[in-house]
C-alpha cells in the first residue's frame, strides 16, 4: 500500500521544503520507492534544494493539463536510487491545481511508488488544502514561536476536518510534530518557546527536533538535501526523525 505524507505548517519559511527533501531522501535510502511533489505552485523551491533545477522540463501542472505524461515530468534524483521529484510549475495561476487533477496524479503514482511526499505551500487556503487532502500521514513542521505554533494548530484542525480521510470518516491522518530551527540558546534566553510549551498546545507525537544549523544553508546552496551531510547536526537530526517515523 502506498503511503502519502504531507509536509505542512501553515506558516511559511519554517522548513517544509527542507524537510520534504531530506525526508524523501531518508525514505528512499531505506529502499522505498519514493516521489516528492512540490505543491508550491509559482515558487518552485524543491528542485533547487534537490539540485535538479536544470533538468526540469515538464511539471505538475503540465501533467494535470495533459500537456505531458507523468514519466516525462518525473525527474530521477541524482543522489539516491528509487527517488523521483515532481516539480512545481512556475505558472502564476494558483487555480492550476484542481482536486481531480491531484487525485488523478496521486492514483497513478500509487501504482509504482511506496511513498509520496507532498511539500505543501504555506497558508491554510486552497493550495495547502489540496496538498493535505489525500494524505495518510502529516508531518507538521513547527518553529518554536507563538505564530508558528498557532498556524500549526490551525493546520491540525484542517487535517481533522478537511481531508479525504476525515470526510469519509476513516481512521484519522497520523500526525507527527517536527520542531525545526530549534535553538537551545534562544530557548534558554526565553526568546523561543520550549518543547514543552509547544507540546502543551499541539499535543501530538514528536517526530524530532531539528536544530537551527549552518549546514542547512550549505546544503541548499550545494543542491544536496541536508540529510546527506551525515556529519552535520541537522543531517543527523533528520536521519533520526526518519528512523522514528518507522517506530
Amino acid at each position, binding site marked *: 500500500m502506498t503511503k502519502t505524507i504531507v509536509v505542512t505548517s501553515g506558516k511559511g519559511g519554517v522548513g517544509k521544503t527542507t524537510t520534504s527533501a531530506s525526508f524523501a531522501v531518508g525514505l528512499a535510502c531505506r529502499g522505498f520507492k519514493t516521489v516528492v511533489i512540490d505543491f508550491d505552485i509559482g515558487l518552485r523551491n524543491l528542485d533547487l534544494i534537490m539540485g535538479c533545477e536544470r533538468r526540469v522540463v515538464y511539471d505538475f501542472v503540465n501533467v494535470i493539463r495533459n500537456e505531458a505524461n507523468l514519466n516525462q515530468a518525473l525527474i530521477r534524483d541524482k543522489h539516491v536510487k528509487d527517488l523521483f521529484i515532481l516539480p512545481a510549475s512556475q505558472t502564476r495561476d494558483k487555480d492550476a491545481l484542481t482536486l481531480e487533477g491531484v487525485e488523478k496524479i496521486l492514483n497513478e503514482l500509487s501504482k509504482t511508488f511506496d511513498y509520496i511526499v507532498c511539500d505543501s505551500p504555506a497558508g*491554510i487556503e*486552497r493550495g495547502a488544502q489540496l496538498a493535505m487532502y489525500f494524505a495518510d500521514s502529516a508531518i507538521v513542521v513547527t518553529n518554536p514561536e507563538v505564530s508558528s505554533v498557532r*498556524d500549526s*494548530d*490551525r493546520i*491540525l*484542525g484542517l487535517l481533522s476536518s*478537511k481531508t479525504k480521510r476525515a470526510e469519509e470518516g476513516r481512521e484519522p491522518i497520523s500526525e507527527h510534530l517536527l520542531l525545526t530551527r530549534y535553538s537551545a540558546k534562544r530557548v534558554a534566553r526565553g526568546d523561543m518557546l520550549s518543547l514543552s510549551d509547544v507540546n502543551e*498546545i499541539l499535543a501530538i507525537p514528536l517526530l524530532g527536533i531539528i536544530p537551527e544549523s549552518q549546514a542547512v544553508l550549505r546544503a541548499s546552496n550545494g543542491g544536496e538535501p541536508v540529510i546527506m551531510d551525515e556529519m552535520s547536526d541537522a543531517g543527523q537530526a533528520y536521519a533520526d526523525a526518519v528512523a522514528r517515523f518507522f517506530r
Partner: protein
Amino acid sequence: MTVSTLSIVEQPCFQFKASFIPCAVLQLLHYDLDAIHDQISATIRCAPNLFKGSFVIIDLEKLNPADILNYAKLKHIVATNGMVPIAIRAGSAEQQQAAVMDGLSLLPAAKLNITELDKQKNVQQTRQTKLVTHPVRSGMQIYAKDGDLIVTAAVSPGAELFSDGCIHVYGALRGRALAGVQGNMQARIFCRSLEAELVSISGYYLTKEDMQTFTAKDGMVQIFLENEKVRIEAI
C-alpha cells in the same frame, strides 16, 4: 470557518451555508454621543483584538424612547473603532424607522416573553447535548444548538465554543467559550483548567485580563451569571 471546502462539482455559483457568526451587542444605556465615543475608544484600547472586525448590533431597549438618535454619527463611532455596525434592535417605532432610513437593519427584540409553555419547550430542547472528543484547534468553531456542549479534549487559543446551554471542558480551555448565546442566563461554563481568552454567559463576558487572578492551578471552576455579572468560582 472561512476556509472553503474543495468542491468536486464546479458548476453551481454559490452554496448557502448556515452559519453562526458571533457579534457584539452595544446596549445603549443613555444617549450621549461624546460619552459613547469615549467609552468605546477606551474599551477598544483595553482589548484591541476582542472586537476587531466584529459585527455590532445596537440595542435600544434601555434607551428613552423619545431620544432622537444620530445614526450616521453612531455608525461612524463604531466603524472608526474597527467594528461593523449592522443592525439595531428594540427602540420606539420612530427610532426604528430612522435606523432603517440610515441603512441599518432591524432585528427582533432580544427579550422574549417566555410563557410557561415556552419554558417547557425550552426544557425539552435543551436536552440535546453535543459531545466533542477531539481537540478544538485554532480557527475552529463549535456550536451546540439548543443544548449543552461537552468537550473532553483541549480547546486551543483562537478556537471558539458556543452553546445555547452550558459548556463543559475537560481539557485545557485556552480559546473562547460562550454559553447561553441565545439568552439563557442560567447557562454555566465548567472547566478544569481555565486559561481562556474570553468566557461569556448570555452575552456578559470576561476577557483574559479580567480573569488574571484565576489561574489554571485553581483547578475545576464554574462560571456563571449573578446580578448581571460574570462570576468565577472554584468547585
